[in-house]
């Protein structure tokens, strides 16, 4: 029940309202069978393996959800986790033991049963493979018990009232054992669709699974194509070439919202940030330098330069649209303060030189340039280091942590943000990539995990913003919108976490095309 909506800041936001959740969907009458649902994906998943691929709508999450389904689903409207492939989930009173009950008779597409052992095997595999949330899982889940065929018991190290969110994404996608048979991974799950073929750089085709526990899906096929350029995807969508497009570019999202296209909108807070490396010897090791940078950056400038005024500019960790937004203000844009802090740091021997690492796509480059101009305006000296490929960027920033400041996405999503918060800001997290961490923040994160109600959680979140203002682990430019739009004649799409949707009940009005 909490109103999970807010409105964007800034003038340009006036023509677009950022309301996390389903937009403009109507039931459309009686479902029709058949047809191929074609979606222009945002980026191509290399493997449909939840343990190897980030489980999110932009990176193949929709495809994987179709193949594996999810144990639990997040319902954006109710802002609640609801059972899906699992029958139910419940926790003990202090939220340290969670019991998952599976449905009877659910089978993988290879015919083997999806039972407690299968869930345990899949989750252990997930952890073993070092997937994105594996570290958190390792730190939190002490034991997975399988008292019977249909029951899985998770014993946690600490109180964690929102643990169920974990099972809406990666760990909740259960991979069949036969997927790993024969050395080369094959996507085998218990979802409504089965893997048909993947022609890299071209298309990925999924076929309806007749044996899906909830009955064969309406669609015959899901076809995902990867069209490089989101503008091309949008054109293709406009001419009916694809039924659906995953959008992440603010200008396109704004346009789609203005056009009132139906779809599922998710706002990823901290989607567009610049991480600051606080390692010894880096400029960011000095908190004053970090704060000075923060004061020097006007998110609105970034929005104008990089996105031609589209999207939301905000340096709050959760901007106004978010349920996590609190009254605690982020540090303001204040060049004078920035200059003061910088001169203090310089007085202590800082040379004022900062390098900025980012990718080379136009938006990143423009962001980098805006960063440069903003910082140089207060007396920094900025050198840009634009990597040619994403792999180079990851290698430099996340693996070698060889950067001062780096354009990045920390990506705290609306539903169950704790996992990402832990990974990116906790000193034990695996994705902090050199950002400053500390006891205070660790304590706050633990407190957040243990908070039971939304009110409590929001109260902790206010403290987290406070701590963020002191630590300045990253410069915040704004959230990233993620908008999966589909054509008017598509109905029955169901939303879930991480901008993913479930397509088992989806159907195409007017039948297959």
């Amino acid at each position, binding site marked *: 029940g909490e109103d999970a909506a807010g409105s964007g800041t800034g003038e340009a936001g006036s023509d677009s309202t950022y309301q996390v959740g389903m937009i403009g969907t109507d039931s459309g009458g009686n479902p029709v069978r058949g047809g191929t649902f074609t979606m222009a994906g945002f980026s191509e998943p*290399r493997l449909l393996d939840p343990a190897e691929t980030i489980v999110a709508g932009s990176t193949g999450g929709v495809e994987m959800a179709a193949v594996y389904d999810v144990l639990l689903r997040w319902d954006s409207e109710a802002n609640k986790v609801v059972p899906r492939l699992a029958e139910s989930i419940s926790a003990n009173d202090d939220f340290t033991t969670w019991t998952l009950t599976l449905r009877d008779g659910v089978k993988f597409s290879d015919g083997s049963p999806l039972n407690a052992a299968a869930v345990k095997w899949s989750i252990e595999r997930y952890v073993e493979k070092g997937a994105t949330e594996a570290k958190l899982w390792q730190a939190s889940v002490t034991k997975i018990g399988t008292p019977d065929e249909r029951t899985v018991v998770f014993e946690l190290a600490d109180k964690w009232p929102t643990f169920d969110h974990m099972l809406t994404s990666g760990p909740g996608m259960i991979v069949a054992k036969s997927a790993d048979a024969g050395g080369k991974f094959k996507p085998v799950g218990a979802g409504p669709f089965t893997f048909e073929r993947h022609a*890299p750089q071209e298309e990925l085709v999924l076929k309806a699974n007749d044996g899906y526990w909830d009955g064969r899906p309406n669609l015959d096929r899901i076809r995902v*194509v990867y069209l490089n350029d989101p503008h*091309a995807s949008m054109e293709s969508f406009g001419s009916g070439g694809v039924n659906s497009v995953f959008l992440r570019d603010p200008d396109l999202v704004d346009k789609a919202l203005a056009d009132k296209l139906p779809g599922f909108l998710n706002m990823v807070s901290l989607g567009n940030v610049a991480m600051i490396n606080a390692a010894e010897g880096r400029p960011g090791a000095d908190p004053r330098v970090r704060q000075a940078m923060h004061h020097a950056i006007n998110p609105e400038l970034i929005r104008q330069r990089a996105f031609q005024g589209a999207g939301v500019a905000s340096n709050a960790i959760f901007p106004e649209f978010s349920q996590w937004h609190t009254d605690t203000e982020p540090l303001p844009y204040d060049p004078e303060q920035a200059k003061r802090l910088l001169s203090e740091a310089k007085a202590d021997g800082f040379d004022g030189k900062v390098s900025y690492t980012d990718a080379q796509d136009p938006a990143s480059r423009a962001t980098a340039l805006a960063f440069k101009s903003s910082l140089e305006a207060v007396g920094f000296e900025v050198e840009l280091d634009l990597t040619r*490929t994403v*792999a180079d960027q990851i290698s430099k920033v996340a693996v070698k942590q060889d950067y001062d400041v780096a354009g990045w996405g920390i990506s705290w999503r609306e539903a169950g943000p704790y996992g990402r918060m832990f990974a990116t800001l906790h000193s034990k997290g695996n994705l902090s990539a050199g950002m400053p961490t500390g006891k205070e923040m660790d304590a706050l994160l633990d407190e957040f995990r243990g908070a039971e109600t939304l009110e409590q959680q929001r109260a902790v979140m206010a403290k987290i913003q406070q701590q963020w203002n002191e630590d300045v682990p990253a410069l915040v430019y704004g959230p990233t919108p993620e908008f999966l739009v589909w054509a008017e004649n598509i109905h029955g799409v169901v939303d879930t976490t991480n901008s993913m949707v479930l397509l088992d009940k989806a159907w195409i009005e007017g039948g297959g095309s």
Partner: protein
Amino acid sequence: MANAALKRLGELVIVLLIVSAGTLALLSLTPTDPAVTVLGEGHSEQEYAQVREELGLNDPLPVRYLDWLSAAVRGDLGASVVPPYSDVAERIGAALPVSIELAVLGLAMALLVSVPLAMWSAYHAGGRVDRLISAGTFGVLSVPSFLAGLLVIMVFSVRLGWFPRTEWVRLSESVADNLYHAFLPALTIALVEAAMFTRILRNDLITTLREDYILSAKAKGMSPVHIMFSDALRPSSFSLITVLGISLGRLIGSTVIVEYLFALPGMGSLVINAANQGDFTMVQGAVLVIALIYVVTNALIDLSYNYLDPRIRRAHV
């Protein structure tokens, strides 16, 4: 004759060896690390180091090259080193037909336009028509291909809506659909090539038209069109054929921009994506195939000189 063929073959093999070794050396210069592609973010340095070791990236270059070569000569191009670890030969098998079709279609369209245009231009050399055509070709030549592509899309896809912007339909699925979808990208390629071909052919035609045998044919009462096609075209097409061969080879590996704009699964994007991911086996395999196509087309071009000019037949063979 057998000697010459053997020598030629030897040269081809040497070219392929140099190209593949050079590619590996070039790749090893780039900082792109396939281990990062394999693992993604969120892992320890040791884990990356281990993957690098497993991928053999720490072996000395000659060892890596010989390993690769010994497999390649057995026809095994190996598998991609990054997920989804696809078979290199299979991926090339999927991408190559796209590139070949684009290149062939584009070149054919270019020829279809440029030959008559060049003839017209050469016939009126120095006149108004010639200057107009020249201006047009220069104009087209000064448009970078990404801009040409955007313009083509804007006109034919967005404004007129005659052709789809994206999506590739395989030839095996539907020939008509395939051609329908291939038209715009091929047109984009053809634009620039046609301009180039027109220039080249026009210049050579002008040279040929100065020959006495043209005058002689004219004095026999043959019509200008007849003379153009039956007397002037063949001797004038040396440079054109040469460029055609080079273009064909080049287009197969380098239509990245067109492939990008139209989201085509061709060799260009295959190579560049592989390079961007540090997928060296894929790049190696693709470059080898592209180089092979290049050397073979050029050998064919050389053979075609014999047809174009029978005098060479005696001199060279």
